[in-house]
Structure formats: C-alpha cells, structure tokens
C-alpha cells in the first residue's frame, strides 16, 4: 500500500501522525508515526482497532495528547492471536514498566503442624501450597469406598484424617504410634489431608521439623499481611 502524496494524514486510534526524525540528508519517503501511512508497512493489519487500550496486560494505557501514542497493537504477522507493535513514536514521560506481581504465586510447600495447617489453609485460594506434616499414626489404615487408604494422624491434641490413593505407589507399611511424614493438599471443606507422599519419619526429621515449621509460619504471616494490603 503505497503512500499517496496527497492523502491527508489520518489519525490512527487517536495517534497524531507526525514526521519522525531528521531526514533531510536522506532521499526517501518520509516516515511518519502512523504506520499505515508508511510504504514500509504494506500489511492491512496495521489498521488499529478502535480501542487503543488493548495492550498486553502489563502495559498501562498511554497518557493523553499531546503525547504521541507509543504502540499501535495489531495482529502479529507470524502467529495468530498475539499482539505486535509498530514504529516507536516519541512519547511524553509514561510509566511503561511492566508491573511486577506483588505476591509470589508459584506453588509452595509448607512444613506445618496440624493446627497450623488448618489455620493457613484459609488462604489457599489466593496462593497455592501443599503441606508437609510430621505426626503419629493414630488409627488403623482402612480402605474407603473409592479404594483409597484412610488413616488418622495426630500431633499433640490435634488429629487429622489423611487419604492416600495408591495411584503410583503402594502405601508403605505404617506402624501405629510411630511418627510418619505426609505431604499433601489439605481439603478445607472436608477437613482431610489428601496425601501424595506418605512414609515413616526419621527421628532426626521430627526433632528438626520445628525450625522449619517456625520459618514457614513466619513466611505465612508475612504473606497474609501482604494479602490483606492488596
């Protein structure tokens, strides 16, 4: 699509088209900030959509005139469904830095006591985590109607029901009254720990778990504080 000499400069999504840079020494078609005017861009996809705020989620909308628009989002020429941008334009000062998420959203594993697990689980919809507990087997191991193994774990006064599906591994032999380690997803609505890993615990693990519990509690307190501020 060649630029016509007598064509008026057409604003693109509120972006005024102005000549860019000093091109006196060059013998070529003057480039302007509205890319559709520019012979270099021949693709009709460069015509922007009406809504100029359709940027990537991290990018704030540009400020008002007289700042010339920085980006004109259009379909990516190489892949479907993504955005691309045209010639950069001069812009007034804008905050274009992408916003970093305030809260780490990746999976965590928290070492916890049963009481703490119940307490921290109330925030699980905001931030994902699994729990690691060290507790004593307080029941026989039974089979439920879905074929999963069920048993009770106790630490101090607190008891929790654990469920383990033998999908990949058999449940190892558990000894009543002995300390075991469970890692799983705590289901708050049913008050059940859905275990993915169960095994006897080492005495050294139990001795040293307390420090991990403290560190995890401290991290969770800080996280909850952050969540309440957002």
């Amino acid at each position, binding site marked *: 699509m060649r630029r016509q000499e007598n064509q008026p400069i057409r604003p693109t999504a509120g972006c005024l088209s102005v000549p860019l840079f000093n091109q006196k020494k060059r013998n070529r078609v003057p480039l302007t900030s509205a890319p559709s005017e520019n012979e270099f861009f021949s693709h009709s996809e460069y015509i922007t959509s009406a809504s100029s705020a359709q940027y990537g989620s991290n990018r704030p909308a540009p400020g008002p005139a007289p700042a010339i628009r920085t980006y004109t989002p259009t379909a990516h020429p190489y892949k479907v469904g993504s955005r691309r941008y045209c010639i950069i334009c001069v812009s007034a000062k804008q905050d274009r830095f992408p916003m970093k998420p305030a809260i*780490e959203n990746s999976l965590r594993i928290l070492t916890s006591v049963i009481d703490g697990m119940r307490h921290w689980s109330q925030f699980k919809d905001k931030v994902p985590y699994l729990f690691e507990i060290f507790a004593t087997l307080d029941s026989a191991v039974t089979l439920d109607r879905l074929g999963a193994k069920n048993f009770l774990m106790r630490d101090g006064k607190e008891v929790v029901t654990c469920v383990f599906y033998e999908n990949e591994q058999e449940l190892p032999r558990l000894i009543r009254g002995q300390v075991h380690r469970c890692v799983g997803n705590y289901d708050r609505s049913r008050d059940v720990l859905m275990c993915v890993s169960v095994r006897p615990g080492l005495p050294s693990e139990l001795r040293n778990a307390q420090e991990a519990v403290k560190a995890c509690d401290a991290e969770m307190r800080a996280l909850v504080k952050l969540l309440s501020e957002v």
Partner: protein
Amino acid sequence: SHSWDREAIQLVQTMIPKETVLFIADAKISFDSFRDGMTATVNSKTIITVNPDTREASLLFSYAKEVSESGALDQDEKPEDVPVDSITDVYTVSQLKQKAQENPEAFFGITYSFMSRLDIDSSVSKVIKTRCSRCKFLVTEDAQSCTNMLCSGRDQALLATTGFDLPVDITDHTGTLHACSLRSPVAENILGCTTNEFTSLNDNERTAMKWKFLLERCKIYVKITPSTKLRSGTRGVVLACSVADPGEVKQHMSALLQRL
C-alpha cells in the same frame, strides 16, 4: 535534548526475548575500544521497527522459536566447571529469584527445597535427549544428519551426544523455581545410573526412583542465570542434589529465622 537511550531501553525492556523481531535502521556503527569490536548504537536517527511484516522477519521468528523450543539455546553453559564443593551460599527459592533479578550475572547457590516435579517415569524421550554436537538442535537417535537447516555441519555426518535432559521444579515455602535443567553428567550422579541403564528400567523401577526425591526436601546445588535474558524470569541448572540431612535443614531454617 531528548534522551533516546532511555526510550530505547524502556522499549526493549517490554519486549519478550526470543519472540520479538527487530528491524533496526540507521543504527550508528562505530568501533568500541572497550569491547574491542564494532558496535551498533541506537541514537535519535535510529528507527526500530518491532515485528515488521516481512518474509525475512517471519522466517527469523520461526527459526528463533524452533531453536528456543528445542532447548538448543540452553546448552551453551558448562556449569560443571565450577566445583560443587566451592558453593556455600544458601538461598530460599524467593531469594534465588530476587538475586537473579537484581544481578546481571549468573551465580551459584544451595537451596534446601523440595523437588516438586521430576518426571523421570514419563516417556524416555522426555528424559533422555540427543542433540547435534554442533548446533545443539534436538535430533532423533537414528538420524543421519542434522535436521537444522542452519547447522554448520548439515552436509556432514551427524555428530551427536545423548544424555539426560529434563526440566525439574524446585519448591520451598517461598515459591517454586520452574523448569530447572537436570542434565548429564549431573543426572547420572543423582539417579545413580547411566542413560543406558535407565532406559532398561521398567516403569515401576523408574517410578520408585522418582519417589526417592519427589516431594522430599533435598539439598540442591544450582546455577542461576539472570532473568533479564528470559521471559520466564529465572532459570536454574541443577549441579547436584541429594536428600537433605535434617540437621542441616534445621540450621538453615534457624538462620532464616534469625534474619527476620
């Protein structure tokens, strides 16, 4: 006068590495004595076109995507050069990520974290990979020559190396480091077998091997590559891994608590 450097830097910072094609016209080319070579600099006359709609750009985009997805770009490092015993700094996952963001250079550290993904019992082709020795593209084991059109050795017989090469996730109470590389020869040390021995294991044996580490707290030595080069943020390479000694874990946790 307008600061074009800042504009250009801000622009580039918003771009996704390995997914963005730039056509740069009228960059200033000059000899840089510090870098001892020719360099291109953006100035007020430079025009940067992002993802231009040209055939060459489209081809370049496709090539870069292919190379990136094959993991070929990740193969240049030699983390084994650093003796593991010399690594002493301990980090949580979030501390690793934070340092990667603040620091332009790769660094080494220890983390007492859980392996939260270790798919060694999926199909073997996802665990053991063969790569062209010249361009690091993935190739099938029986290939005669490299399938990468731009490989310098394309007309010659294939020179390839086979080894463990899989992504693992590392998780603690502060977050997860996704897709860390676990490769040969480190993987042989951790898993305790060669690629041939591994291939001859049955599914149950591989699953049992997996659960030795999966969701266990391990002492993991990592090399972390700066996040500025990667859209995903931080990338790690596993240098060593063993199930952690509970006493060491306790010391690490105590140290964390003292810092609060």
